[in-house]
């Protein structure tokens, strides 16, 4: 290899562009030629000088490339990132915080008046429709059954006064009525087969106050068997009418026998506690009837027609009627003068069992008649 051929390959040697054979030939020549080694060194120095100075003296292209490399992203992306990147993080958090605070404030603000309002409304809510209309599972609701003797207790303040003033005149009659109740019991015992009463039915009988004599308990069972007063009673309760005479007497008889009749107020309180939170406003429109009774007839249709005639003849008015599975319940309004005649007229239609007559009759008497049979 000549020196000229060797120096032609210096450039490729510096750039590492020689293949193995070229590199071997060049190395062999350089090993033997000191001039070419010196010339190669100067060639290296020249290229190094040029490359070292190049970045400084070529600002235009260099600056552009450096700036381009320094920029992580084009300006639209950086602008977008600058405008929107913080928001996905900050905005939801800020919005959530504002919403949480607002909802919390609203709940607290609205919650407390509502609680106060409901607390005020609850005791004022009228009662009535709690009593079931069909067959009454007495074991489930012993308290309403116990209240049947004092139906007026269903009516809040008015009931308290009325119950008290009605209880007073009734006191002396208790002794008289109790034997009547006993007579009825005896009558049922004679007419009914005691074996037909199941233990289940007996178990359902509530024992309101004290343990009763076995005979009385069975008598109570018997009483509800033929005419099922307990099944009718809830409906009457719904109507807000007083219980039938039979029930009233039975209640009195129980009180006499047990000797532990609860005070009226106490039972009234117990009933109040049972009131549903929201009673229908319809109940408020009801007014306690002055009289009530049960009319047992053989032919219901005939009795209804006769009653209609009787009502028309006496100048009375049928103000309300409920049809139940046990028979219709009719509310009548009759002038005081015609009351006696209505009473006797009802007695002619069937077996009329009126409740006890109030001591003072109003000018217009409201009567609730339950027709059975």
């Amino acid at each position, binding site marked *: 290899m000549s020196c000229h051929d060797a*120096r*032609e390959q*210096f*450039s*490729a040697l510096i*750039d590492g*562009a020689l293949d193995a054979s070229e590199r071997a030939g060049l190395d062999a020549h350089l090993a033997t030629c000191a001039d070419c080694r010196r010339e190669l060194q*100067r*060639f290296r*120095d*020249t*290229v190094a*000088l*040029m*490359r070292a*100075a*190049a*970045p*400084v*003296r*070529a600002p235009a*292209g260099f*600056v552009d490339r*450096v*700036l381009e*490399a*320094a*920029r*992580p992203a084009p300006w639209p992306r950086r602008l977008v990132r600058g405008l929107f990147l913080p928001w996905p993080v900050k905005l939801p958090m800020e919005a959530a915080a504002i919403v949480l605070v607002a909802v919390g404030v609203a709940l607290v603000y609205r919650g407390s008046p509502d609680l106060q309002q409901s607390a005020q409304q609850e005791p004022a809510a009228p009662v009535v429709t709690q009593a079931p209309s069909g067959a009454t599972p007495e074991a489930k609701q012993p308290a309403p059954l116990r209240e049947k003797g004092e139906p007026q207790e269903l009516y809040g303040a008015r009931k308290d006064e009325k119950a008290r003033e009605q209880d007073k005149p009734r006191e002396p009659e208790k002794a008289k009525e109790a034997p009547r109740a006993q007579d009825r019991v005896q009558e049922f015992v004679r007419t009914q087969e005691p074996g037909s009463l199941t233990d289940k039915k007996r178990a359902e009988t509530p024992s309101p106050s004290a343990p009763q004599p076995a005979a009385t308990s069975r008598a109570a069972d018997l009483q509800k068997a033929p005419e099922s007063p307990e099944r009718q009673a809830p409906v009457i309760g719904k109507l807000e009418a007083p219980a039938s005479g039979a029930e009233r007497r039975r209640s009195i008889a129980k009180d006499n026998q047990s000797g532990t009749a609860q005070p009226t107020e106490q039972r009234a309180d117990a009933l109040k506690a049972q009131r549903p939170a929201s009673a229908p406003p319809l109940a408020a429109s009801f007014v306690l009837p002055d009289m009530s009774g049960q009319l047992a007839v053989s032919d219901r249709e005939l009795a209804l027609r006769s009653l209609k005639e009787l009502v028309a003849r006496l100048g009375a008015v049928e103000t309300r009627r409920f049809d139940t599975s046990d028979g219709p319940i009719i509310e009548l309004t009759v002038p005081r003068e015609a009351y006696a005649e209505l009473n006797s007229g009802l007695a002619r239609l069937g077996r009329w069992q009126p409740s006890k007559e109030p001591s003072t009759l109003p000018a217009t008497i409201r009567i609730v008649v339950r027709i059975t049979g």
Partner: protein
Amino acid sequence: MARHGEGTLTRLASSEISPAEEVERSELETALHRAIGELSEERRIVVVLRDLEGLSYEEIATALELELGTVRSRLHRARMDLREKLERFLP
């Protein structure tokens, strides 16, 4: 990344060297600039792309649509010319 690149650029632009070095560098740059400018266009282009822009032989051949041997030959000629013109700046 951006700050690093800008820092490098700032350091290069405001290179803290002595006035004597500044003058010497300025002379070298002037001489280099003139020497490159005096090269023939075909040699100048090849040497600039290789030693100033750092392109490989293959990239230069592709960009200028030349044979690889032609690029290698032109580059060698250009460097030999520059070696002679920058002789006084060599150690």
